[in-house]
């Protein structure tokens, strides 16, 4: 009998210990990300160390996974019901996850320090389902040496595509397999150039496609005729086997509109002088904006969700985290505090870094819809046939319009 009482007491003791531990407010959450893979794991770890110092009651178990199969893996875990408490999504996948109700609204944290345009990218029906962890945009990068050789002046912020075309032709005329410009003929370029020419992929309230509008025909002609008519851009065959960055780094390409994430690679590998400018516009200016969303799993408990919201808000807007990010050259923090951002201006090549911030005035958000990936694939297919020169731009866009109408449900 005594033995029994003893056991009973010790069980009670263990149970109460457990209860005591629960009363203690330590929370451990899991955060899964891809954007620190490929070289920024340490920066993320430093950010976490800072966070944990400020919030000793929250521990974050960080999982870093390579970009390639990240989404296959994440989808499996979400569907299997064991997704991490908070995780990262790229902008293309964000809409699908949010629309399917697997994300939790982010509440109870101060978001005032975050760039409102960036924030709005992850707001659906008035609910904030994600925060912009960081962002990147696209600028026009040009080879100064080639501009000098061709005896033409450097691009300015006021350039239109006609100016760019003239410069491209002058550089192409240098001969020796040199090309003027390289802009991919893809979905991503299309929605941006369309905006520059005053067009859009949809009508005002996003209920119908308008890809074959007169503005879009002009926009696509501008993209395609560089290859098929004036030939200042290499075609698929000429390009085969070499990426667009490789072309630029080989010194045989005058201009390339590409992401600011190219800076470190170009700085290391270009043995010629280069700089950047805001991308040319046409009817108006429009520049790309890419951001990854950091989100909370809908199935996570309220207690963990609150901790996760704190962690995500810290990642997105804490000035110290932002400073770490700028220092590492790991994209840009989507914050409004210019004092922190100023460090970026003097962080090395290229010289005209203020063009990165000037570009932010003309941001165009990707037109995210639920069936985003399918839409992008359909658009790409028809742009490819226009770029091959076998189909006229008008026919390609009409076919694109028809296929989009058939396969994609808009609200």
């Amino acid at each position, binding site marked *: 009998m005594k033995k029994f009482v003893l056991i009973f007491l010790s069980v009670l003791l263990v149970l109460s210990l457990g209860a005591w531990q629960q009363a203690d407010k330590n929370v451990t959450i899991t955060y899964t990300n891809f954007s620190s893979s490929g070289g920024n794991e340490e920066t993320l770890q430093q950010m976490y160390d800072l966070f944990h110092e400020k919030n000793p009651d929250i521990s974050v178990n960080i999982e870093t996974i390579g970009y390639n199969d990240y989404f296959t893996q994440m989808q499996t875990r979400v*569907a299997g019901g064991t997704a991490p408490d908070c995780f990262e999504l790229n902008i293309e996948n964000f809409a699908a996850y949010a629309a399917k109700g697997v994300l939790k609204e982010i509440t109870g944290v101060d978001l005032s320090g975050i760039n409102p345009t960036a924030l709005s990218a992850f707001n659906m029906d008035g609910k904030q389902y994600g925060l912009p962890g960081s962002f990147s945009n696209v600028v026009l990068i040009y080879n100064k040496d080639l501009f000098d050789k061709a005896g033409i002046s450097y691009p300015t912020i006021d350039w239109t595509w006609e100016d760019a075309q003239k410069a491209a032709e002058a550089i192409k005329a240098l001969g020796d397999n040199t090309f003027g410009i390289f802009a991919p003929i893809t979905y991503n370029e299309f929605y941006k150039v369309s905006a520059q020419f005053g067009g859009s992929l949809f009508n005002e309230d996003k209920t119908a496609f308008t890809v074959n509008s007169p503005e879009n025909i002009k926009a696509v002609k501008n993209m395609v005729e560089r290859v098929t008519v004036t030939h200042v851009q290499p075609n*698929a*065959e000429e390009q*085969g086997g070499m990426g667009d960055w490789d072309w630029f780094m080989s010194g045989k390409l005058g201009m390339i509109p590409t992401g600011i994430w190219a800076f470190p690679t170009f700085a290391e590998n270009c043995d010629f002088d280069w700089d950047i400018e805001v991308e040319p516009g046409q009817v108006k200016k429009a520049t790309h904006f890419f951001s990854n969303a950091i989100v909370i799993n809908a199935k996570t408990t309220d207690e963990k969700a609150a901790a996760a919201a704190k962690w995500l808000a810290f990642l997105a807007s804490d000035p110290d985290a932002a400073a770490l990010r700028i220092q590492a050259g790991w994209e840009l923090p989507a914050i409004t505090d210019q004092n922190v951002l100023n460090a970026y201006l003097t962080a090395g090549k290229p010289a005209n870094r203020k063009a990165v911030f000037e570009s932010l005035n003309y941001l165009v958000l990707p037109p995210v819809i639920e*069936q985003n*990936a399918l839409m992008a694939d359909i658009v790409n297919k028809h742009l490819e046939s226009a770029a091959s020169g076998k189909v006229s731009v008008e026919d390609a866009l009409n076919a694109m319009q028809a296929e989009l109408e058939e396969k994609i449900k808009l609200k």
Partner: protein
Amino acid sequence: MEKRKNGLKNQTSAVPFLLPSFKGLIIFSLLPIVISFFLSLTDWNGIDSLNLNVFLKDHFIGFQNYVKILTGGEFFRVLGNTLYFIVLYIPLMLIFSLLIAWLMNKNYKGVSLFRILTYIPVLSSWIAASLIWKWVLAPKFGIANNMLSIFGISGPAWLQSEQWAMPSIVLVSVWKDTGFFGLILLSGLQGIDKTYYEAAAIDGANSWQQFWKITLPLLSPSIFFVLIISLINSFQLFPQVMIMTDGGPNGATQVMVERIYKYGFKYYEMGYASAFSWLLFVIIFALTNLQMKMQKNWVHYGA
């Protein structure tokens, strides 16, 4: 030995031998496969939590996915692409694997090195292999077209050309898989009793006759194996297409599993992808069954 037996006869004694793999079959294979069949009757998107509600109330749509697939043109076009791959790939792969196995089975200096060299493509990751092949097949600067131009042939645009993209994929796949199947065939060759050749040599058979009368029949179980496996695998051709062409140009290299993957994990139509897979299953199963039936005509087990 009074009675000729076809093996050991004992019904219950097979159970312990089969048990481990049978357990594996149920848990890791049959159960998920059966679930995937039920999923093919739904419009499940592949993100919502997978539970009974998915089948019973939220997403059940009957055979609509199958109707949609079979009445649309995409399935048959993609099936055509896949069959085109198979028709080119299997004969080439088989001939080269046989050749390599035969060369590896000889006794000469450096055979060990040769064996390792032929296996290196198998070991290389698809990422490295496709990067280099993209470069070899680059239309303007690639080695392939430079070599062809020596003979006055102006080479095609390979991966960038609608006609040549699939043959290019075949070329790279043969290069990558030959070492693997060669190794399988080699183990078949190693199993052939040397006394057969000695006897044949005494009878005055030349090496060509030996190949046809001894090697080929005795190797037929291995060849049969390679045929079945490579057929199943080629219907499920996937990584090389994703990395090298992503289905392009203009859909010329879209194949079954590439579509299934994209529907399931990119377009979030997992129900549709499951139905696609089950139609693929029916085709592979029918062809495999046919091969199994035909094996009696040409596959010889034992002497």
